[in-house]
Each structure stands twice: as C-alpha cells, then as structure tokens.
C-alpha cells in the first residue's frame, strides 16, 4: 500500500507488535468492516482513505460528498445513471377472476372528474410496458448494469455533507447493493444475508427493500457476494453519537468502526517530515500499490473462515451480558432511557454508570476486527502462542476502536470525569475489564476444565455471580457442544 499519509503515533500494542493508523485501515479492509474516519479538517483522514484506494487501483470509487448531489448524480458517477430514470408506473395489474389472466388497467378521469380504471388491450399493454421498461431499465438491464460495477472499495469524503437519500445509497453501496424503487439489487451476482447463528441465505434478485431492512433489524448482515467495503470521512463533532441525531444513528448503524484521527494525531517528527517534504495542502493519490486488493480479499476469506477462539467468545459475552448487569440484578437494556439515572447511588462512580452493553452487531464487529488485527500481528512476527495468550488484549483493542463512538458511553460522565475524552473513558473501562478477568481467571479455568470432564459442579457454577452470571449459561452451552 502506498503510504503518503504519515503517522507514527501508535494506536495499540498488540502481542508486542506496535500498530498504527494504517494498520487499523488494513484490518478493517481485511475484515470487510466499514470504517468511518472522523476528525478535524486537514487532519489527514482523506489522505488515509485515498491511500487505501491504492490496494484497488481499478476497483475503487471516490465520491466527494456534497449537499447538492442527488442520487441521480451518484448513480451517474457509478455508471448506473440509467437506473434512476425509472418513471412512475401507473399501470395496475389486475387478475381477471373469470379467466385467471393478468390484465393491465390505467386510471382515467371521465367528464365528471370521477376516476375509473380502463383496461388496455394486450397489445396496448405490451407496447406501453416495453416503452416504459426501455426507459427505466428492466430487471435484466439492472442485472447487467450492476454486475459491471467493479468497486471493491468505495471511499466517500465528507459523508456528512450528503443529503440523507444519497447517504442511504452510499451505505448500501458499502454493503454491496443499491436500492431502486424499493428493491435491493446486488453489486455483483447475489445479495447474501448472514444471520446471527452464522447461516447464510442468498436473497432473491431485486428483493423488496423493506425485507432487507427487517432482516437487518433482526441482526442479519446483508452484503454482496463480492468483496465490497466502504471508508467514509467527515468532521461531525462530538454530537454525532447522540441518538437524537439522524446522521449519528445512520453512522452507528452502518459503519462498523469509527476512529477519531485527531486522537491519534501524527507525532511532531511526522508533521516535520510532512511539512519539509511537501507543502501541497491537497490530498494526493498514491502510487499503485505493490500489494493488491486480491491479497486483501484472500486475507478476508482466511479471517472469516477461521474459528473464533473460545476466549474471544467469552470476552464478547462479557461485553454483551456482563456489562448489562446493574443494580444487583437489573438490566441496563431493559432500563432503556432510565439508565444511567436509575443506577443506585453507591454505584454511580463505577463502570455500571459509565457504559452500556454492546449490541450483537457490535460484538461481531469487535470479534472480526480482533481477528484482523491478530492476522496483521501474525504477519509481523507474533507467534500463534503469543496471539492466543493475548486474546483478551486483542479484543479490548478492537472494543476500543469499535465502541468508543458507538453511543455506549455515558456522555455526562465522560464530560465530567474524563474531560470529554471518550478514549480516556474507554481506557479506564478496559483497565477495569482486564482486572475483572484477572480476578476471575481461576473460576473460568475451573469452569472450562469442568466442562471438558463432562461434569457440572454447583460450587463452580455458583462462583459466577453478578455480572459474571452469563458464564453459567455459557458453560452449559459449551457442555452441550461437547456431548
């Protein structure tokens, strides 16, 4: 990958391997995780995104977000302009109960202004439909057009500038499809739904978009069967994670990882080098990358095929269920808006009041990102043993990258206790989580050993109380797997 963006500020230390902003981008590409780079103007986020385009010299698309761009222009940019010209289709198909045939009717007003449907002859209907579809693009046209869109990586600069309709189409493109007249069409051959239990279903071509939305709400991931991923940039301040903000909600929903590049600002030696080498403030396109997108796609295939280590599943369950526990047995999820105000007084200074549990979708992103980061560390010389030992740390680094801007933090506490620094709050949470796992290590090991031996000891199960109660169910599930 060509590296015009220069930043030696360390983002994380994983298994003894220092990781930088470029590595985070690489990990997102390899994990096929949509990345939002948030930061101040001129912070280098666009350059970082454009560097990533070097992986896909002929298969990447750059869209500059503007508030006067409409979906027609967007489709023209991706050579799908014709699709957006579909006119309103007034013909009504009605089944004739006598013949059982489909008849086509059109609305007509008589001289009294009363609307009545008038039947077209078969010949008329055929002529009209043929004419309209020639303008609109038939299903076959759509299939032909969308299959030619070869963008594996879509970079959208200044995403917040886009109007919501364009933004929605861009998010769809990130996932590998477009939406036309209420139907979803894949970029590539097929659109695939991956359900929470790992099952995958190929969706019908041109599936109703409402169905896609419902599947997504139920927790399924919708993506094209070809590799496609998006990077977006924008400077949208601190308020974007607020649930009341449409943009914030959209970004939280569709971008898997959000990184504030200002937090990892280049070091003084980097900026010195940048300023001494080139005073051109414009973003530059990198040279063609030595590593190809093909290698990245292979890495993605390898990562997704790997079984997830058990330790990472336990950590994900802690973030999903352990962090849900509050007030000696209540659930933050069930509290909804009452959290954090309803947290008992004597816990208000604790992590119970600082963070919400993650969503199942975020859990998947964290695991995937952790796997990707581990893959990079492996490539840089970390041994498999060291990587296995560091699974908790790897998950914590991924948790920080995925969740810091996902809306799980108590903003008032971040402001009052951490001077508004979300990453500092996350660091505190991570330190606490590491401590919790260290204290619980003996019980977890006993639990695993118990399951391995096909036993169920009350003493061991009862050691998992409070926020660790989820381990009882986890061990039971593991025991069933082992039978």
């Amino acid at each position, binding site marked *: 990958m060509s590296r015009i963006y220069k930043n030696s500020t360390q983002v994380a230390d994983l298994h003894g391997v220092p990781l930088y902003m470029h590595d985070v981008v690489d990990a997102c590409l390899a994990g096929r995780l949509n990345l939002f780079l948030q930061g101040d103007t001129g912070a280098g986020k666009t350059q970082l995104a454009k560097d990533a385009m070097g992986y896909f010299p002929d298969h990447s698309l750059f869209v500059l977000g503007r508030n006067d761009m409409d979906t027609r222009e967007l489709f023209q940019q991706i050579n799908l302009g014709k699709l957006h010209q579909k006119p309103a289709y007034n013909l009504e198909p009605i089944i004739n109960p006598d013949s059982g045939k489909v008849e086509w009717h059109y609305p007509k007003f008589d001289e009294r202004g009363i609307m009545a449907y008038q039947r077209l002859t078969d010949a008329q209907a055929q002529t009209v439909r043929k004419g309209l579809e020639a303008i609109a693009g038939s299903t076959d046209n759509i299939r032909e057009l969308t299959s030619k869109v070869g963008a594996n990586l879509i970079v959208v600069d200044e995403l917040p500038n886009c109007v919501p309709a364009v933004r929605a189409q861009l998010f769809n493109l990130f996932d590998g499809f477009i939406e036309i007249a209420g139907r979803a069409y894949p970029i590539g051959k097929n659109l695939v739904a991956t359900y929470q239990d790992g099952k995958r279903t190929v969706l019908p071509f041109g599936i109703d978009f409402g169905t896609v939305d419902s599947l997504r709400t139920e927790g399924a991931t919708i993506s094209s069967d070809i590799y496609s991923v998006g990077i977006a940039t924008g400077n949208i301040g601190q308020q974007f994670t607020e649930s009341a903000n449409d943009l914030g909600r959209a970004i939280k929903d569709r971008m898997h990882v959000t990184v504030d590049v200002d937090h990892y600002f280049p070091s003084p030696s980097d900026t010195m080098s940048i300023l001494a080498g080139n005073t051109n403030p414009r973003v530059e396109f990198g040279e063609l990358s030595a590593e190809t997108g093909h290698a990245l796609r292979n890495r993605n295939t390898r990562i997704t095929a790997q079984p997830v280590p058990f330790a990472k599943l336990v950590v994900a369950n802690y973030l999903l269920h352990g962090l849900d526990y509050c007030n000696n047995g209540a659930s933050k999820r069930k509290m909804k808006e009452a959290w954090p105000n309803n947290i008992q007084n004597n816990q208000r*200074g604790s*992590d119970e009041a600082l963070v919400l549990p993650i969503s199942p979708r975020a859990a998947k992103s964290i695991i995937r990102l952790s796997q990707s980061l581990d893959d990079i560390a492996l490539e840089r010389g970390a041994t498999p043993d060291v990587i*296995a030992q560091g699974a908790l740390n790897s998950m914590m680094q991924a948790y920080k990258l995925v969740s810091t801007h996902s809306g799980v933090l108590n903003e008032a506490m971040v402001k009052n206790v951490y001077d508004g620094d979300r990453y500092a709050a996350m660091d505190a949470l991570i*330190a606490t989580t*590491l*401590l919790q796992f260290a204290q619980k290590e003996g019980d*977890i090991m006993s639990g695993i050993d118990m399951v391995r031996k096909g036993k169920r000891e009350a003493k061991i199960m009862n050691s998992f109380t409070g926020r660790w109660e989820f381990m009882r169910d986890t061990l039971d599930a593991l025991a069933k797997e082992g039978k």
Partner: protein
Amino acid sequence: MSIEIPDRWLGKPVEGALERALKNPNPAPPIVTPSAPASILPANNMGLNRADYIILPSQTHGDYAYGDTLVSMQRSHLGENWSESWDSLKSDGAYMLNIRQFVDFLKLLRSGRAFDGDGNSIQLSRLNGLYEEITEVRDPWRSEWLDAKFSMQAVGKKWVGLVNKNAMHITYHTADPQGVLTEVTEPLEPYLASNKTPGINLDNWRMSATKHGLPAEDNPDGGLYYWQPVDGRVARFDADSGRAYLDCNEGPAYRVAELGVRPARAKI
C-alpha cells in the same frame, strides 16, 4: 456453528483447575494490581483501583494525627444524606474526610505535587483540574459532605450551684493504620465563630486552619462564604455558579442529587 472446548485459557492449560478449585474450601480471590494508569471502579468495589485515588500524606495538627490516606478523585454516593453517605462508605470499607483532612487535601492539590494510589506522579493539570472541580465558582453545583457534626455541650466538671459554661463541640472520626475508625468528640479550638457571607479568604483558610480544619479567628476577608458551626448541624463544602462555601450549619437529613461524598481509605 460449533464451539470447540479449549484445553487452554489465554494460553494457560486448564487441566487440573477443577480439582484445585474443589479441593480449596474457600478460595480467596487473587490480589491483582491494575497495570493501566487509569481505570474506573468496577461495581460493588470488586478490586480497588488505586489509580483513582490520591495519596494524602500523613499529617499532625497538635494532638491530632492521621496516617497516609487514599482520597478518591471523584465524589460518589450522590443524592444521599449525611447519615446515608456514612452507611454507604462503611459498607465499601471507606470513610468521609473530616474538615481538617479536607483542608489538607486542598493544600495537597494546590501544591502541584501528588501521587496516585499506585505511586505514580499525577500531572499538574490534573491536580489543578481537581482543585477547580471542588472550589471553582461555576456551574454545575458540586457539593460534598464532610465528617463533622457539631453540638453545644457543657465543658468542665459539673458543680452544684454553679452554672457550667457551654462550648461548641465537634464530633469526627480518626482512622488507625488499618482503617479502623474511632469517633472523637471534643470542644472546638478557637475558630471564626461568626458567619461571613462573603466571605473568608480561601488561601488563608488553607494555610492556617485550626486543628479541626475551621478558619482561624483572624481569617481576612475573601470570596469563600462561611457559615459557622451550629448545634446539631453537620459540615459540607459547596461550589456553584454563585459562590463557593464552607457550610457548618447544614441539616444532616438534607439530600440532593448534586450532593455526594469523597471516599477516603487508610493506605494499607
């Protein structure tokens, strides 16, 4: 998707862990020191995070002395009255700062040199931020209870036919090196026995407070509002958008969401 039962947990073999756990009748949780510089207390105080505390070094004021004390950088137990705060603190193994310790804590923050519970030096900006969080006149309202209850009691032996002199007393707690508390009630040493609204001089109070932490009789004028001790009342320190004040005339049953307490612990 099947889950493989591992034979290791984070690289450590699990074989034998079950037998060890069953053999040990009452396993004590391992003592773990957090490696990260900052963390937040987990719920139920499972594991004290010493990085969230400042070491208030031992001090002697006349015949009153206390040992090294860990003082929380944050207030907690918001919304509880004075007695409830005490109950909550005791259940957490903590206690409330008395006025003398509170003054010493302010002095420590102002000194610009302090260490967290792990012994790491705390940045000057952080210390200044904490000082301002307590004393600065601004929104939001911040308020914390202090360990001082006042009572008017007779002093000296009671003699038939003689009128005993009444004097204001203070009840507070001392902590031994293990953190065991002892309640002490004694007459106040000479102090500023009148309200000043405004105000007393904060810097002077910090530097020349009495053994019990109250402002000296000769405290010059300043911006810190001061309400003198009143029989049956307790103490607290407040700052809001209008003023900062030391209030020794507060009802112990009062509670409000902004009012909390700063937990302290003996540094063991």
